């Protein structure tokens, strides 16, 4: 139970910091000319490694945080992020999760799909975002950034899990040093 709470807490802190960095750290904007959005990569990792509860919680909170720091209508980013996380969760048995190439493709696909879904929803609610053909370049670069981010997030998650989780208590594990029966001649 504690492990699950730790994971959920770590995930939410990570999502919070990611959204903060995306909004307040403008170095990528100066270098690339746009701000990459890595939240789809985070949802891919959550969908691949955690439960559906964490997927929905992280999609809702990340989406709400993102929208609160933008001119998007509040809650607009939640469905695209949830769809990505939910699809990863549903089909994760069919995906080679630990393969770097698979992770890159999944991250790229999510990084490409989420902005398109967000734009489509913006049109549905009658908003007037700034779009143009030259956005295609940042759309591709953003997808590639998400592709690179998935293996990094997965590695970071495993590292944090190793640092902050207790090893599982398995009474029937063998060899078990505490319960090993030492036979002697007596």
């Amino acid at each position, binding site marked *: 139970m504690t492990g699950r709470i730790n994971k959920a807490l770590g995930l939410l802190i990570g999502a919070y910091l990611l*959204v*903060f960095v995306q*909004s307040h750290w403008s170095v990528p904007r100066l270098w690339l000319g746009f701000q990459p959005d890595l939240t789809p990569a985070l949802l891919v990792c959550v969908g691949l490694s955690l439960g559906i*509860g964490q997927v*929905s919680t992280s999609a809702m909170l990340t989406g709400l945080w993102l929208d609160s720091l933008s001119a998007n209508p509040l809650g607009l980013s939640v*469905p695209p992020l949830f769809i990505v996380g*939910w699809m990863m969760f549903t089909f994760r048995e069919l995906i080679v999760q630990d393969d770097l190439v698979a992770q890159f493709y999944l991250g790229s696909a999510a990084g490409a799909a989420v902005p398109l879904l967000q734009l489509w929803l913006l049109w549905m609610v009658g908003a007037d*975002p*700034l779009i143009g053909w030259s956005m295609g370049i*940042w759309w591709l670069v953003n997808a590639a950034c998400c592709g690179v981010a998935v293996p990094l997030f997965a590695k970071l998650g495993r590292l944090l899990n190793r640092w902050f989780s207790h090893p599982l208590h398995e009474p029937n594990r063998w060899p078990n040093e505490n319960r090993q029966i030492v036979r002697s001649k007596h």
Partner: protein
Amino acid sequence: MKRFFYKSQQTAVGAVLLTVFLLLVMPEGARARLKSAIGGLFLPVVGISTTGQAAIESLGQLGSTAGYGSPTSNQTLGQDGGHPFSLSDLQLENAKLAEENRQLIEARNWEPRIPWETKLARVVGRDTFNWWRRIKINLGSNKGVRFNQPVISLRGQLVGRITEVGPLTSWALLVGDPNCKFSALIKDKDSRSQGGIVSPRQYNPDPRVVELTYLPNDVEVRPGQEVVTSGLGGGFPKEIPVGKVVDSWVSKDGLYVEARIKLYANLNQLETVRVLTHF
């Protein structure tokens, strides 16, 4: 177990759909307040980040001042075989201080040339999405910032206008955002000034380039002509410098002329801006 799995999936999907539905049916005012409250969750981290940055800068300055002010200890350290402040370190420090000094002098020099009452504000964030152009500044209603007040650069060039005001921070819409439309004039020494509307229509990778439309058909638009705000519509006061004409063309239907304007203010590198409090 299998039933629980499907049930938990349904619950998760239901929770997300319910949240989105509730947000959609919520009254506009309540949604704006909720948005502001959720955005306010980032204020502690913004505070920590700003304080940390300031502390690091002051520590650096303290180190360098101590170095300049204590030749004896420098000599002692030098005798130990180390060179605590190499020439390149000092040059770097000097360049940094010179740049800071230049910015402060620039801000002070431009102050009397700006005919309006202004308040200096620091840019603390930007819109997370690339299809909106907004900045977050560290002044809110507690410092007298109000809705629709114009925002200009240190040199007095047009940057945008305030669209959301919180108690401690505010959001400013930048020129180039599709929701930031205003009336502007092309200044011409030889003939009368011609007016049009700055209304960005599509994404441009260079945030400094915007479109000026609805210029009269008979007007001659030349590259390099200066564009200023017209003061019409009440959004911005008259004569705020906007940018210079890059090129122009007749619209597809032939009814009016359109032009591309290069903004004076570099919107990607804004660190400090001025909010016009009285104009």
